[in-house]
């Protein structure tokens, strides 16, 4: 193993030294690529040098840099559905060239035909990456007419959720807690509003979404399964604009504009749901609502320095009456400073704070009540350097340090005026990583991306250190000792080397890509409920709970067909091999349990599958079909006879269809269909009667032994732009009419088992029943009105 690591390091070093030597006598062209209309940076815009048939792309801040031998070049700046700009550049000395691209059709109501579609999916070294732009997301018929980032992500291959109304999403057979969700670099610890029906991302504020399912580059880490990187809009730096929507569940309003033209801009977006008002007849005194605010301000000091400040604040509130209820929410803040050291060295320094908390209040008066809350707060510093070595090498070097504070439970009960405090101690940890990553074009055919991440995790004081004695496997471990640690000393340290590599090899009009990713995960989302919920608990690796470690291998073939690459197709296979995945002892108690670590065990996980995708991007009819055949399993000592068993999110078939048809210039019809194999649950086989109650019982004592029925659903939507053809309206507005679950399928949220009727009287037969609970059991129509002016 050791020699293997040395070999990797050595080969990395040798590649760098070679490329540095060859990087002599060349000249750099660099700059920012922005949208002409609003000044937003264009992430991933392509820069193509005609003469050399080579190019680069803009990074997440819209910055590009390309180093070429002196000469005159024709440079194309390209971006999907934007007019390509062609510049003739005479390179004799380093040049800064900022570009503004113009959208092909400024008219919202005209059909956009991309003159030259891009083949990024084939030519990029990236694989297992899904990108959705907000325009596509807006077309997908959505629940209650409200477009949602996470719901749209779930229409892509390899992505699913356990059931309607469950928080979060699952990627390639991974758990919800194995996804790293980033909002402007800040980790989001719970991505759901309203128990998973909506996500925390306000679509008005979102600029770019990227889901990395495999081939994760070395600049990301900390989770096993995927990275969802969401970037917010910077705000229109050209002119003030107001947009918003009025819908069935909530209303949105966003204001953006320049603070100082082309120098500084701001963005503020708010949402507030009013389902509490609609649900009033059903819920009496109860209310349920959420609100969130997403905001960003940025300032360009000069060509070489830019500052971005972004924040998110959101809350869900669920009240049974005035005193009693439940609420939860996230707060994130990110301060970033972009600095250009020179035309080839771009840097970014980010300071991030993120917190998630939930709280309960119960009790009718101050003498009898129970208050309980839990929180995770993290502080992160992330420096990163993007070095555009030469035409063939783009280097990323950076680091990351996160300080965690976990407050598992602050719980105080008052019973008849007497207070009992059952709060748990805080837990602290520090996670850090350094990485280096290089994208290297070996030839026209071969591009490589490889990197190495070195991560460490320290579980530290002050706090209690518990020692447990294993009992029989799969059962609660017994506490044998507890020691107090007072200072900030390290209790347990872990470290891991995480190599990453991707390869693209072009064959004809297609390409073959392969990748290998090793990731380590040091914090764990503990959830023992049927579906993920907001009260799931993040907990650190400790002396008892080890980090999760995952290897993923992926291989894929990408190919475009038709004129202008009108059909994009791909097949990808993946195999994931995980160690120390979190599992639970029988009857685990995860709430307010001081000895939670005694209830956590770990097992080996494996997940594998094939993803097929066909996408049609142009024409009056466009859309995609994605299908995943997959399996996700666990093997844990003491559970299910130590044999492999399916995870809670093992879904064999996952089929998604999305289509949009432009009927007229002002109307378009869209539909999406979902079919997912039912998730496994733990079901009883028998029953017995004891002390007057009938108890369901599983003879085989098998976890996840039965599948609930498959989930399938068809949604349709109609988008209609009011006004007359050819006549420009002062307000760009449109209506969306949608019906969710049009054939009213009762998709299971959960299946549960209960006794049939009252107390058992001697000699009576009392049956046990299986009940299916569906959150949505009927078609749900909705209308929303959206505007920009």
């Amino acid at each position, binding site marked *: 193993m050791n020699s293997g690591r040395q070999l990797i390091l050595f080969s990395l070093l040798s590649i760098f030294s070679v490329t540095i030597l060859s990087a002599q006598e060349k000249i750099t062209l660099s700059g920012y690529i922005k949208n002409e209309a609003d000044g937003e940076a264009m992430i991933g815009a392509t820069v193509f040098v005609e003469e050399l048939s080579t190019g680069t792309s803009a990074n997440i801040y819209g910055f590009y840099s390309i180093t070429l031998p002196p000469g005159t070049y024709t440079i194309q700046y390209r971006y999907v559905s934007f007019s390509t700009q062609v510049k003739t550049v005479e390179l004799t000395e380093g040049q800064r060239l900022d570009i503004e691209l113009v959208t092909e059709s400024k008219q919202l109501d005209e059909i956009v035909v991309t003159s030259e579609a891009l083949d990024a999916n084939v030519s990029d070294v990236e694989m297992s990456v899904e990108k959705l732009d907000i325009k596509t997301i807006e077309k997908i018929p959505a629940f209650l007419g409200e477009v949602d980032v996470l719901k749209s992500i779930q229409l892509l291959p390899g992505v699913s959720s356990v059931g309607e109304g469950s928080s979060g999403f699952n990627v390639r057979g991974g758990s919800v807690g194995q996804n790293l969700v980033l909002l402007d670099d800040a980790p989001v610890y719970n991505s759901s509003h309203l128990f998973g029906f909506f996500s925390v991302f306000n679509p008005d504020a979102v600029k770019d979404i990227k889901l990395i399912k495999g081939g994760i580059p070395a600049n990301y880490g900390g989770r096993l399964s995927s990275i969802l990187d969401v970037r917010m809009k910077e705000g229109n730096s050209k002119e003030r604009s107001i947009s918003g929507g009025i819908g069935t569940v909530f209303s949105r309003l966003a204001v953006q504009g320049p603070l100082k033209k082309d120098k500084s801009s701001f963005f503020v977006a708010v949402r507030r749901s009013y389902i509490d008002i609609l649900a009033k007849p059903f819920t009496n005194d109860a209310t349920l609502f959420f609100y969130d605010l997403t905001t960003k301000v940025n300032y360009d000091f000069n060509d070489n320095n830019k500052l971005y400040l972004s924040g998110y604040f959101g809350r869900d509130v669920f009240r049974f009456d005035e005193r009693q209820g439940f609420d939860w929410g996230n707060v994130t803040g990110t301060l970033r400073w972009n600095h250009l050291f020179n035309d080839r060295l771009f840097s970014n320094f980010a300071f991030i704070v993120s917190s998630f908390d939930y709280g309960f209040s119960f009790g009718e008066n101050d003498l009898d009540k129970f208050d309980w809350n839990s929180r995770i707060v993290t502080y992160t510093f992330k420096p990163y350097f993007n070095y555009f070595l030469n035409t063939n090498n783009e280097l990323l070097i950076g680091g990351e340090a996160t300080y965690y504070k976990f407050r598992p439970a602050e719980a105080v009960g008052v019973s008849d005026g007497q207070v009992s405090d059952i709060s748990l101690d805080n837990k602290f940890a520090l996670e850090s990583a350094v990485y280096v990553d290089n994208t290297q074009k070996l030839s026209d055919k071969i591009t490589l991306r490889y990197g190495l991440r070195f991560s460490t995790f320290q579980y530290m004081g002050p706090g209690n250190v518990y020692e447990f004695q294993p009992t029989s496997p799969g059962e609660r471990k017994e506490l044998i000792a507890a020691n107090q640690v007072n200072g900030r000393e390290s209790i347990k340290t872990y470290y891991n080397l995480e190599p990453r590599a991707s390869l693209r090899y072009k064959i004809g009009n297609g390409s073959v890509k392969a990748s290998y990713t090793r990731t380590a995960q040091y914090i764990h989302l503990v959830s023992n409920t049927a579906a993920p919920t907001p009260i799931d608990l993040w907990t650190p690796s400790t002396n008892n709970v080890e980090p999760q470690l995952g290897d993923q291998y992926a291989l894929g073939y990408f190919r475009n067909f038709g004129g202008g690459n009108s059909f994009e197709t791909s097949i990808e296979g993946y195999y994931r091999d995980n160690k120390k995945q979190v599992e639970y002892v029988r009857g685990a108690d995860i709430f307010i349990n001081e000895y939670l670590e005694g209830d956590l065990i770990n097992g080996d996980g494996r997940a594998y599958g094939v993803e097929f995708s066909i996408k049609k991007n142009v024409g009056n009819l466009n859309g995609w079909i994605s299908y995943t055949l997959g399996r996700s399993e666990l093997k844990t000592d003491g559970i299910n006879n130590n044999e492999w068993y399916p995870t809670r999110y093992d879904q064999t078939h996952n089929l998604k269809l999305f289509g949009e048809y432009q009927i007229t210039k002002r109307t378009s019809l869209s539909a999406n269909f979902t079919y997912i194999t039912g998730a496994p649950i733990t079901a009883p086989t028998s029953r017995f009667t004891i002390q007057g109650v009938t108890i369901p019982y599983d003879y085989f004592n098998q976890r996840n032994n039965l599948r609930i029925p498959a989930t399938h659903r068809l949604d349709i939507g109609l988008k209609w732009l009011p006004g007359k053809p050819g006549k420009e309206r002062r307000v760009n507005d449109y209506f969306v009419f949608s019906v969710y679950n049009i054939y009213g399928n*009762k998709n299971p949220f959960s299946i549960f088992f209960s006794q049939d009727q009252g107390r058992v009287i001697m000699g*009576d037969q009392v049956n046990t029943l299986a009940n299916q609970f569906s959150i949505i059991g009927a078609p749900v129509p909705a209308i929303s009105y959206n505007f920009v002016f």
Partner: protein
Amino acid sequence: MKRYIIAILAMAVLASCEETVQLDLKETEPVVIIDGLVSDQFKNQYVKVSRSVDFYAEGTSKAITNATVSVTDGTTTYNYIHNPTPDPENDGLYFSEVRFAGEVGKTYELTVQVDGATYTAEDSLYPVTAIDSLTFIINDDEFEEPEREGYYYEMLFYAHEPQETEDFYLFKFYRNDTLVLDSPTDIYFSNDDLLAEEINGIPTASFYKMGDTGTVEMYSISNAGFIYYNDLINLLQSDGGMFGSPPVNPRTNVKGGALGFFQASSVVSETIKVEE
């Protein structure tokens, strides 16, 4: 307390639907179920022995009438006899041949033999704290809108909880000698985490009318008993809500492959009548 929270939270959020479904569950072999109690009251102690049935089976749990049952405290062994009276309602019930009272501090071991298989279980008998008193108050909400006419008296319960020991309790409430429950699947039990030293008027289940008698029985249970009742209530109150955990077979203190629980308890009881 936690159960209470989770039960409330499980309320459906949106217009939802719930229906009974028929699942394709495996057929299995029956399992022996043992349910026994040794209390500190001087009487014929009982043990019930039966067999489980399939989830969707017709009929009740099958009584086992040919078992050999005995309980020992290490020095004395008590033999049990099947349905001595005999009463068809008591099929599967075994009573100790002689009357005896369990003693605090002793550990009782049960042995049950059925068709050549032997099952054993043991539980320790812990002390229980005394009930100081009971009172009745008029529950304002019930008084205004009684669920049953005249039933608006609520029984409150007072006791001292020793704070230096970790204790577990099981409660049973009776109205005129009939067990009462707020919901048919309730079991009332507690650890002492949230009980203060002075238990000052904790409300009990159900409501009473003028002239009714109310009785509280308080049992000491072991940690194993607490876990067992906790597992039972998890299964009984499973409602498929967002906060429901997957079903887990109730943990048992019976060894040898049978299920159920053999419990040793001290019992105190107090009775009060609703009067003007």
